[in-house]
């Protein structure tokens, strides 16, 4: 799979926002050889999608949908930091 196609698929997977649905998209649409890579890439695309959820409770639920033992092992941590970072940036820019 070409990188551009892979990136496009990961963006679509991340639009599912909730981790189990993201994984389902990956399993349904990507060759198994790319599943681990896709899971490792997801944390970089998920934060902006989670941030678009309308309420804090929904954003928290989306973060909590990532299991603590997800692979790679720091996935949840990366996504949580990413969401907080983007939220602070938006707030500093007067968006939130």
């Amino acid at each position, binding site marked *: 799979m070409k990188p551009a196609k892979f990136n496009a698929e990961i963006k679509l997977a991340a639009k599912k926002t909730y981790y189990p649905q993201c994984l389902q998209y990956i399993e349904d649409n990507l060759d198994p050889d790319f599943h681990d*890579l896709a899971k490792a*890439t997801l944390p970089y695309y998920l934060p902006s999608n989670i941030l678009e959820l309308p309420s804090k409770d929904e954003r928290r639920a989306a973060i909590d949908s990532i299991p603590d033992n997800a692979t790679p092992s720091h996935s949840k941590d990366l996504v949580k930091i990413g969401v907080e970072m983007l939220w602070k940036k938006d707030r500093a820019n007067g968006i939130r």
Partner: protein
Amino acid sequence: MGFAKDLIRGEAIERNLLDRLRLVFPQARKAEGYHPDWDIEIPEIGKTVEVKYDPMSQKTGNIVVEYYHNKPSAFSVSLADFWVIDTGKGEYWFSREGILECILLEGMEPVQIHGPQDRHPKWVFLIPFCLLVEYSNAKLL
């Protein structure tokens, strides 16, 4: 400079940084053996450091932040509080959050590279040095 020389130079840079850290933090120590979480630990302040040598950035203008090499690697698995990137011309300190912030806020997309010494391709973020350096806000204390 070839891969072997880069490796030796990279180890020398790590050793040099450790020596300098020990002037202030005598208990600072290097990780032994395979240790993807961090390269240097500073017990006095409970912080860890990842050291990267990226001389190619002088030619390409990009810093390579690897996250997958046949399995989750480097940025995906490192727990280090700080990333010290030596370009061969200068040493730059980043917090882990600073690098993540750059990737997310600048909309960096992963790319696949295949080095001549690599059995498997790597997935990395190629971050323009001039962009990444704006996120070099790490503070040790």
